[in-house]
């Protein structure tokens, strides 16, 4: 729900959006936590009565007085049957407890996965709306990490984090109640080490996290070293530096081990302390309850139950430290995800949008256009004024960095030009609904991006409603169809990582089909045939001649051969138009265009030797 995403800016809104929407299921989950623990404390209680019954039967020193209801029950059964009944009850209690535990886990952990799913979707949808500028400022890896590591931390907080917390609280309350019922004195004394355990765990977890960060830092150093070493392997080999590199690496590696061992020592002492303190509670319990039994204030059955409760309590209390930590990390990760969610997209429809514009013809005007990228000081385009009448072809030539691509990228509003400086059919770009604007532009970018999907999917990428005949036309014009026999599954061949690896030229031709299939009013080819061989290129140009009729076309190219028949050629230098005119005019002018032409003739002649 992209609409709600925009409103999630604070942690509170985050909780409202993702937590409270499942209020009823959370409540149900909590109910099952309660029920699980009610039955969990039942098992030791059954043990207690069973053992007490045995004590009663044995008689002797520890003379046990059974509660009257138990005596009544016992008198109804034979010894054999009574024990069998006790056994059966303990199994039934475990079964009911298990059922609730199953429901608890299923609901609460399942819920956290569902929230994870929802956040991931919202995150993805939001990413899709963000402008190109945002992606220049954020590394892919970083954006990915938020959708993976951070999301998992948030999930852990909302799933196991919440569940264990509830579990610890209720289980502690219940078992404490039972223990106090058995013997308040033994409860107090034997539980003395428990708070100490909780505090130690909490403190050590903090320490462990610190050490862990140190280890991660060193791990990064090792990674960086390997990366540098392998990237610079040519230099290193040329200078026979391998032995020194190994020595350097040895030091890093050793330091890594040293830091790891530091953590190992802290962990080892933490575990042995926990073991010791827990053992101490059992020992205290054994000793004190033994004394109580001797004094007739407790039964052996009670003692057995008591010890069972103690071991039941141990884990939740130890895990408290981890749970708290889970919460802390979850909050931090949540903030990182939210910071992306907060990013706004400036390039979108707004109150300026004129919704009556539903189609475009393709007359392009630049009016004293000066443009600089956000956050930079030097303009990339300087005072460009130019009109491309509908159906005409404009060619842009110039050196790398002259601003050719930027000029083209302003049309579909990948970046926003200053108001009033770019118009299509006389409308300022900002007044045209974004969907309408982009629908009418077919842009073949310099770098071809294909998806790991079928060829057909990649070609119908922006026009999945296009008829089959249009598809055939598109693949014919781009000449991809000539390679069809190279694709094992025809147009259904997978491309990319898991499928066929296309050559650079094939990729570009797929991209051209993709753009043409949209049947655009404005066709932009940004160095779109650089990897295509000359022969195929010629064929494509021939086909494109038909396509270009009636469409406004913008060609960006280094090769004179591709631009010479354009209606208008402009030469860009450092963001300014330095020459413009038709091919013959520019040649006659003997300027920059002419120099370029001469060079290319030379290169061509070399190529032919």
């Amino acid at each position: 729900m992209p609409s709600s995403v925009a409103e999630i800016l604070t942690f509170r809104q985050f909780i409202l959006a993702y937590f409270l929407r499942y209020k009823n299921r959370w409540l149900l989950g909590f109910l099952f936590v309660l029920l699980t623990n009610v039955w969990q404390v039942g098992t030791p209680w059954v043990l207690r009565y069973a053992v007490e019954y045995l004590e009663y039967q044995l008689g002797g020193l520890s003379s046990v007085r059974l509660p009257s209801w138990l005596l009544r029950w016992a008198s109804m059964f034979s010894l054999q049957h009574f024990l069998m009944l006790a056994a059966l009850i303990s199994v039934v209690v475990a079964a009911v407890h298990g059922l609730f535990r199953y429901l608890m886990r299923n609901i609460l952990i399942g819920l956290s996965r569902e929230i994870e799913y929802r956040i991931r979707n919202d995150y993805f949808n939001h990413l899709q709306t963000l402008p190109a500028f945002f992606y220049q400022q954020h590394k892919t890896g970083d954006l990915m990490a938020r959708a993976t590591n951070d999301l998992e931390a948030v999930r852990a907080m909302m799933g196991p984090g919440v569940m264990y917390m509830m579990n610890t609280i209720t289980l502690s309350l219940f078992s404490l109640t039972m223990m106090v019922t058995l013997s308040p004195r033994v409860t107090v004394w034997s539980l003395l080490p428990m708070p100490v355990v909780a505090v130690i765990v909490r403190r050590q977890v903090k320490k462990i996290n610190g050490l862990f960060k140190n280890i991660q830092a060193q791990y990064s150093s090792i990674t960086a070293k390997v990366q540098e070493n392998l990237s610079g392997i040519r230099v290193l080999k040329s200078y026979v530096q391998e032995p020194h590199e190994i020595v350097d690496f040895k030091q890093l590696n050793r330091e890594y081990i040293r830091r790891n061992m530091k953590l190992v020592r802290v962990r080892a002492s933490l575990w042995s302390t926990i073991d010791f303190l827990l053992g101490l509670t059992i020992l205290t319990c054994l000793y004190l309850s033994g004394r109580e039994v001797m004094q007739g204030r407790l039964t052996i059955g009670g003692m057995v139950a008591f010890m069972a409760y103690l071991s039941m309590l141990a884990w939740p209390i130890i895990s408290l430290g981890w749970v708290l930590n889970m919460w802390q990390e979850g909050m931090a990760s949540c903030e990182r995800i939210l910071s992306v969610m907060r990013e706004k997209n400036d390039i979108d429809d707004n109150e300026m949008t004129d919704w009556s514009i539903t189609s475009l013809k393709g007359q392009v005007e630049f009016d004293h256009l000066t443009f600089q990228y956000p956050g930079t000081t030097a303009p990339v385009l300087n005072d460009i004024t130019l009109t491309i009448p509908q159906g005409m072809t404009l060619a842009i030539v110039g050196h790398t960095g002259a601003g050719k691509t930027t000029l083209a990228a302003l049309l579909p509003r990948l970046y926003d030009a200053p108001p009033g400086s770019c118009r299509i059919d006389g409308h300022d770009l900002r007044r045209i609904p974004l969907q309408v604007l982009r629908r009418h532009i077919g842009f073949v970018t310099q770098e071809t991006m294909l998806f790991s999907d079928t060829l057909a999917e990649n070609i119908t990428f922006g026009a999945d409603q296009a008829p089959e005949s249009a598809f055939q036309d598109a693949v014919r014009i781009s000449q991809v169809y000539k390679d069809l026999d190279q694709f094992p599954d025809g147009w259904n061949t997978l491309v990319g990582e898991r499928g066929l690896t296309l050559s650079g030229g094939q990729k570009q031709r797929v991209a051209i089909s993709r753009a043409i299939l949209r049947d655009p009013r404005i066709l932009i080819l940004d160095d779109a045939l650089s990897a295509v061989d000359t022969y195929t290129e010629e064929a494509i140009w021939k086909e494109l001649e038909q396509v270009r009729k009636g469409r406004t076309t913008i060609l960006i190219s280094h090769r004179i051969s591709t631009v010479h028949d354009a209606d208008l050629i402009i030469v860009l230098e450092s963001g300014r138009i330095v020459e413009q005119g038709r091919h013959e005019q520019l040649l006659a002018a003997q300027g920059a265009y002419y120099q370029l032409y001469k060079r290319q003739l030379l290169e061509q002649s070399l190529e032919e030797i």
Partner: protein
Amino acid sequence: MSIHEEETLGKAYDSRLMRRLMGFLRPYRWSVLLAVAVLIAGSLIELAGPYLTRIAIDNHIRIGDVAGLQHIALLYFLLLVGQAIITYTTTWLTQRIGQRIMYDMRMSLFSHLQKLPLSYFDRNPVGRLITRVTNDVETLNNMLSSGVVTIFGDLFVLIGIIVAMMLFHWRLASLTLLVLPLILYTSFLFRTHIRDSFRQVRLRIARINSYLQENITAITTVQLFSREAKNSARFDELNRDHLQAYLKTIFYYAVFYPVIELIMAVSIGLILWYGGLQVIDQTLTLGVLVAFLQYVQRFFMPIRDLSEKFNLLQSAMAASERIFGVLDTPIQDMGPVGLAPMPPARGEIQFQRVSFGYHQDHLVLKDVNFTIKPGEKVAVVGATGAGKTSLINLINRLYEPTAGTVFLDGVNTLHLPLDDLRRRIRMVLQEVFIFSGTVEYNIRLGDQNIPMDRVLYAAQEVHAHDFIVKLPDGYQTELSERGSNLSVGQKQLLSFARALCFDPEILILDEATSSVDTETEGYIRDAIQVLMKGRTSIIIAHRLSTIQDVDWILVLHKGEIREMGTHAELLGRKGIYHRLYQLQYDLEGA
């Protein structure tokens, strides 16, 4: 982990791999033995708790022997202290073994990588190799230090409990253990299901991540083609698949633990019923019954964990397979060893019918023949893709010829010790590689034998000194990764200093094409002259000044030598060189 790697994961256990892994354990066999011994001791102590409870109940509590109970408590306390020490020792010992092995493995991987031929790095992306040295080794460590050892520990406890129960009352023990096959079967079932569904989860998360990554990198295309809605739908599909897979694992987990507890309850029920009867019959004491109840509870924990350990083992196997894949790659022939260093070379380089290709079917150099006499300075020119870089790479054996021979002073370079060969030839590459470290480090690299005044001398000679001393910490200024705090020209001067510092007999220089300001241009020109002075030099020339300074020029075209001669001769010939010259230098000169 990529989808591809994830799909190959599946092999659980491979005895051949295991044997090789054990090889890494060998140097630490005494530590391992000690760890096992301590583990056994620890298991014994763990068994002692219920036993002491039994004694306390039967021999002391039931007869009101307070002093006896105190003795037991004291003994228990001592055991607790012992256990704390043992827990500490085992954790420390086993982790240390794991860490050491990890260290050894990283070292051998890294050292091995250093010896692999350059062509290996062309085939294997850096990212993948980094994963081998970092991630995969880490995965293996998890198995070695916590996996294997705790599996042993758990096993000892299990066996110990069975033995103890048998000794107490073998009939009750047998009855209690009746559920054992049931547990094993449940665990097995759980393990298979959970493994499969976790593989599904990993596969699907990998799909999500690659789709996400694709969308981020291709965001412009997505927006240009207004694909947002469709891609959202597709992402939702992938995301939902992942959710479904996860819900399945949650189901298995949610079922498994309660089932194990139920089986445990059956055991407890059996003890209550049969044990209870024995107590009444006086063939079993109450204390033993209590001890049984406690043993049963301890019995189930390790079994529960065992299945998780299995997963660990599985991914470790996959990781070790990948690691050994690297270690098994043959290293480059280092040439004869133990040979006395060659006498200083005269510096004659000869190519005899040399052909070379990165792939078998496509030669980038064809039948190249030439001889460079000692002390001569030669420029190599040619269009992009003519084979210039490949040519110079053959001289110091970064690559080896597909056919033909490269001679240095009349000796086949393949017969020279590799490090000796490279020590005598220095390369200055077009793309200057700056290592993270100080300026000084970048000049003399790791070679501690080069004195500082040599570094200073080299820097001064190539005009690098002036800008270096203006840096915040002079020669000790830390350069960032890839030298982003230096200008292009400065980086070049630095690499010249590097080459001069090592005082090579033969210099190979791949001139940079990037343009620099006029002042720096002048410095670079001077520096190149200094570098070439008095040594055989081969230069891929891009500067007019350079080709005017060399003795003769070698023109490569499409992998073949097409023209050789001095600048004037070649210009007069009006051939390829003439055109190249016009293309490359005319504009510069104008």
